[in-house]
């Protein structure tokens, strides 16, 4: 019997058709949360903090799939026991722990204190993420609500508040659907038509357009093996440039004259209402004593702006009767690392010692 040889154009035609079908099938699969299928918390231990970074020897990556990020987190794989008092930390890179090992971060230090809270023991989870935007933090907080938190501690700083930079975080910009949900859920209409929001076209939903996201998802799973093998999720350089002490003689803060009507208090308000038992913390900043320190506190903040922010934040907390810790100046200069908000392990320990009593004091708020 003579065997038919495959014909070139037949093979090419079939390959193109199959590829096109596969490519466009992704449009119809967009609502399936592939990110939730994860090897973490089953094959590999969950991560202590959300995936972030791109150093080849840190076994971590920047990605925009919040489902996948949470699925890789230890929070997802931890069943809440009756004696666990679940505390979630929300914040920026200072909470995430730039240059710090997981046990040295604020969450790690609080866990090492084994804080008793209303007859239970506080178990603190690090949900910080290294971009400064309240909208991003609200998105993380909203996602975390499903994990039954007893308390949320939200550490903020002025840099995350300007209304015009709420969509500057890539995590926010690349999750337009989630942002729209947040806007609808918390009544944040002021942000509905922000130009920075990326709206995905049909083509953007195909495999070709989403190949990076697919690759990231697979890479995250593979890195799970290395996270399990090394417990390393960040690159620790042997040396780094210390945070700037000598500052420019500039009073500029985002080209603003006053902070009134320029900060995203509505987003903060939304977040504070999401979990009744939320402690608001004005996180420590570096207070410089170097050149031009009479004009600026540090690289980020001129004195006038930060002082006004503190006043406004205090008023915000008092008006709403919120548990509020203003810890902006509790850490000495030498306990900052490479930025005016990144702390050393000792600095984090100081912060933990201030926050621990607040956890104990406020633990019964939800019950009452």
């Amino acid at each position, binding site marked *: 019997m003579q065997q038919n*040889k*495959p014909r*070139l154009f037949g093979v090419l035609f079939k390959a193109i058709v199959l590829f096109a079908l596969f490519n466009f099938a992704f449009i119809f699969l967009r609502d399936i949360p592939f990110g939730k299928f994860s090897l973490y918390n089953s094959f590999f231990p969950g991560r202590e903090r959300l995936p972030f970074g791109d150093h080849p020897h840190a076994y971590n990556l920047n990605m925009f799939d919040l489902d996948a990020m949470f699925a890789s987190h230890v929070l997802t794989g931890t069943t809440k026991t009756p004696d666990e008092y679940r505390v979630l930390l929300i914040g920026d890179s200072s909470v995430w722990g730039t240059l710090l090992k997981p046990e040295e971060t604020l969450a790690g230090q609080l866990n090492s204190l084994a804080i008793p809270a209303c007859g239970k023991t506080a178990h603190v989870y690090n949900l910080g993420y290294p971009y400064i935007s309240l909208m991003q933090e609200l998105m993380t907080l909203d996602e975390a609500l499903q994990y039954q938190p007893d308390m949320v501690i939200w550490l903020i700083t002025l840099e995350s508040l300007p209304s015009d930079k709420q969509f500057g975080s890539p995590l926010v910009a690349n999750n337009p659907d989630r942002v729209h949900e947040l806007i609808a859920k918390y009544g944040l209409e002021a942000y509905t038509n922000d130009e920075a929001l990326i709206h995905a076209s049909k083509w953007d939903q195909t495999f070709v357009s989403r190949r990076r996201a697919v690759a990231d998802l697979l890479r995250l799973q593979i*890195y799970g*093996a290395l996270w*399990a*093998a*090394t417990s390393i999720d960040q690159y620790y350089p042997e040396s780094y440039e210390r945070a700037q002490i000598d500052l420019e003689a500039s009073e500029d803060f985002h080209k603003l004259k006053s902070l009134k009507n320029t900060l995203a208090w509505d987003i903060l308000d939304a977040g504070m209402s999401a979990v009744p038992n939320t402690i608001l913390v004005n996180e420590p900043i570096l207070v410089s004593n170097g050149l031009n320190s009479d004009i600026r506190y540090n690289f980020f903040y001129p004195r006038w702006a930060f002082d006004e922010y503190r006043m406004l934040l205090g008023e915000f907390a008092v008006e709403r009767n919120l548990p509020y810790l203003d810890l902006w100046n509790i850490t000495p200069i030498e306990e900052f690392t490479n930025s005016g908000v990144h702390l050393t392990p000792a600095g984090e320990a100081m912060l933990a010692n201030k926050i621990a009593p607040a956890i104990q004091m406020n633990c019964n708020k939800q019950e009452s």
Partner: protein
Amino acid sequence: MGLFEIGVSVLTALLVGVLTRDTMRTYLLLALSVLAVYWFQPVIPLRSFDFWLPSLSLALVILVWFITSQTESWSSRENFYGLMIIIGLVTILDLSRYLFPNLLLTATIPPQFISFLVFVIALAVVILFLVRLSRTHRWILSAAIILLIVILVILKSPILSLRASIFLGQFTNRSAENASASDLRWLGFSYIAFRLIHVLRDKQTGRLPELTLSEFATYVVFFPSLSAGPIDRAERFAQDLRKDFALTQEETLLGGQRLAIGLFKKFVVADTLALLALNDALATQVSATGWMWIVLYAYTFQIYFDFSGYTDIAIGIARLIGIKLPENFSSPYTKPNLTQFWNNWHMTLTQWFRSYFFNPFNRWIRGYRNIPAWLMILVGQLATMVLIGLWHGITWNFVLWGTWHGIGLFLQNRWSDFVRLRLPNIGQNTRLQSALQFGGVLFTFHYVALGWVFFALSNPTLSWQVFLALSGVSR
């Protein structure tokens, strides 16, 4: 070669396969290969060296052709055309800095024309002098082999490479502090040198057939196999080149299939495994025995899929042009002993060493009748494998890797002799035979995998740490 370079190479190969015939195909392949030598060359911190190094590759090709070809053939029209194609294209590439500064093929701007002219004239004088000398002095062939080996040694030795970089940096006003051993990344030189040495040795032994300059140069710098082999033989390559070839649907499918397999192996499997594969950082970061075995297995498969993937890509592209490059890998990890592993791993390199080192060395050592046979085998295996190690880089770890395999081959040779003499009926027991076969595959695979500990890491201390972790001994 990245995906873009591979894509362009495939399209080019298809066009050549479809549109050209006979001599025209050879000229076109020569032209494309000359361009590829420059295009594939990565940027180098030394100014204009991404132009000078490919130019030196071509100069060596021309020199070796002149000293290995018959004088009568020099004046033939084919050879004149071949020479004009090479010189013409290189001149155009240099002039592109003036003619099309936005469409440069080289990684950086080529040198000024006056520098290029001086370079060409100087090389022409040297080549003419050596060629004249080679007519009366046979040792020129040996000198050319030594020259190629010296360049290889400089490029492969971190210390010499650094010194060379510092020395060459003086001509480009580059500070010695900025020099690094990895500055002199001369694309494909390891393969170019081995092809040229093969031709020179075959000329010395009278086995080299007459090749035109176009055939010869295309063989040495053939663009699909320029960066990662395989190392073909000149006479076999020329046979394919001389065949009447027309790209058929069947050939396209076969070439395309091989290419697709290669792309999948390299860019899906190998690049994924690379995330997990053993390296200097993981050697210090991983301490658990189980995880260390996993990263070692990942490296073991990564290096195979990476290298064999590139070979498949080269074979697939070449097939579209009518060149059937030799196979380089044939399921090496499924072989029951180390000899068979080496007969199926980087086959063209192994064959090259067998032809030009192992066999001549064995013939030479057999002259010493007072040396026992086992010692001859040990020395022959060790010397060959250490040289193969050094071809990858002149470092202690490559020496150790070569030694590991040399000893392994020797022990396997002794074991095979033992079994043959003491257990002559072993072949009749099929169950025992199967068990030995299976055990052999498993043992050989792990022996090879453990050898990669030397290959993957930069120094013996790290390798030792990894061996400790693999054996469960705490560090």
